[in-house]
């Protein structure tokens, strides 16, 4: 049976721009996903701890402070350390084009900047989580 997709939405770093993360969280919930929102100012360690506790399929990190390279790098390292290969890592916020390949290389599967429709994010998550689940032993 397909359990509902569980998503951890997190604000990492120090910036307080939570408009986007909240809009996306509500849209994912309206699309039938189970959404856990961490609130503001989390370290990568806190994000990963919450993701493990909540046994999520997806981590969505929102960063608008310019610290995305540092924070995504740390987050990915921790994900590897804890063997979270089956968890999809996504990013949202202000990410300059030239940083996108660096983040994708790190293993950030999707980056959603300003102007992205929430529908696009919903569809992306459904598709990618499906793929990940097919890879896992039942």
């Amino acid at each position: 049976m397909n359990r509902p997709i569980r998503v951890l939405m997190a604000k990492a770093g120090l910036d307080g721009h939570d408009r986007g993360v909240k809009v996306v969280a509500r849209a994912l919930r309206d699309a039938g996903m189970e959404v856990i929102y961490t609130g503001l100012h989390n370290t990568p360690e806190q994000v990963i701890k919450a993701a493990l506790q909540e046994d999520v399929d997806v981590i969505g990190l929102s960063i608008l402070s310019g610290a995305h390279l540092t924070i995504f790098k740390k987050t990915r390292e921790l994900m590897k350390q804890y063997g979270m290969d089956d968890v999809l890592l996504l990013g949202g916020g202000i990410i300059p084009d030239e940083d996108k390949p660096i983040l994708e290389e790190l293993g950030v599967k999707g980056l959603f900047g300003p102007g992205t429709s929430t529908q696009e994010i919903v569809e992306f998550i459904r598709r990618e989580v499906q793929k990940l689940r097919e890879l896992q032993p039942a």
Partner: protein
Amino acid sequence: MKTHVQTERERWEKKTLEPALKKSPERRERFITVSNEEIARLYTPDDIKDLDYERDLGCPGDYPYTRGVYPTMYRGRLWTMRQFAGFGGPEETNQRFKYLLKEGQTGLSTAFDMPTLMGLDSDHPLADGEVGVEGVAVDTLRDFEILFDGIPLDQVSTSFTINPSAPVIYAMYIAIGDRQGVPREKLRGTIQNDMLKEFIAQKEWVVPPRPSVDLIVDIFEFGIRETPKFNLISISGYHIREAGSTAVQELAFTLADGMAYVEAALQRGLDIDEVAPQLSFFFNSHNSFFEEIAKFRAARRIWARALRERYGAQNPESWKLRFHTQTAGCSLTEQQPLNNIVRVALQALAAVLGGTQSLHTNSYDEALALPTEEAVRIALRTQQIIAYESGVADTIDPLAGSYFVEALTNEVERKALEYIHKIERLGNGSILEGVFRGIEQGFFQREIAQAAYEYQKQVESGEQIIVGVNKYTIPKEQDQKVPTLKIDPEVQRRQIERLQQVRRERDARAVERTLARLEEAARQRQNTMPYILEAVKAYASVGEIMEVLKRVHGAYREPAMV
């Protein structure tokens, strides 16, 4: 009895409009602003038949200041074109400041990095990757010595966008002034120092709301005596709007915050006519052109009446709402970024027609990264074109008397007052208490998140059109490539090194002693400002000082809610 206008309108609707609509219907069912306010087809004298010129508008410089706070407005002096700047370490920002001063600018505006804004030192684990990125990094007075090296504080006015750590930054500025031998009463500038909107929208905080407001009133009490030419607060709607509020919510929550600060000052025993003239405001200017103008005009009228009637201020300087405006960052698009230049121009024009005292225009590349120098120049030129070429600054409040603008001003005012009364009821008659409870219960946060979500749904359904995003789109490969600004990661290393050097070289016992005295004063509920100044002069860091306040008052953590 029907008015003449009513009869005329009915005739027009039947004879002229109806046949026209039959032939071709209007473009849409509902015409709405970006804040989901419905706009009527036509406004006539009947929409403003109760408007009383003297009572509701007044001449410029006259109560209730709907037409502007100064008698000559921009014919006398243009608004201040104040572009916000700061990046890297204090060395880089000092060089930028000197460049701007050489170019004839007399006002500086400082952007701090996230760790400084949150009251953390550059070597704090949460600061990693953020040092010097969004603004200049400041840890101790040593950084301020570099930041203001060669800049005489009696000749400039400096604006500091700083909130939870505002007392420390304000103390550092005074300390530099003291060292330069500038009398404190000559210091000019502004600290944002508005914590209520932080809890509501921008989300930078250290201690909980109630002690945060106590610290602000400490600054009022200290500043009225010590630095009478310094704006001690900039009560801000900008961030409330950026977080997704409507225009009415921005106005209502900001003015309620302003009234809350007035009430907190009165509770401390301060004189309303001493405090009020040192208050200033900061608003957003968004896309719906006329709605923004109406908001600025309504803001002045509501504030003047509240200060005079509700709080009994006698001095006309207390009644005047003076404000800074910034164009809406959240309206900028990553797609086809050059289009943002046009958006910013329209928003800036609305701010000018609304009578702003100073203006920051955003750069077109800000949905992509921090602005480049070229983008900043275009943003400034946009203001200069409005000021010198368009002619809109040559007469005062040119839109007064427009049926539409006056009706909209009344409507925005009415709806904002409804919110303010709701907040007052929440606090059993006290707006200060109402704002505290609204924050504690998540009232403001919910209202804003709801408005942001509604707007997003309207964008996705196509009811709100964003050119280049949900209409007139082009493939990403064809989109304009714009250069973006990069911050050297070296800044973080250098900043941490300097902080550690200061820690080694300073008189450790003096730091300990001044921090202990500050803690004692905070526990005894004495005014903390003199003690913070003492600690700053002993080279205690931003993080160490804020840590003391956290020890006394506890750390704030927002309940996460969606």
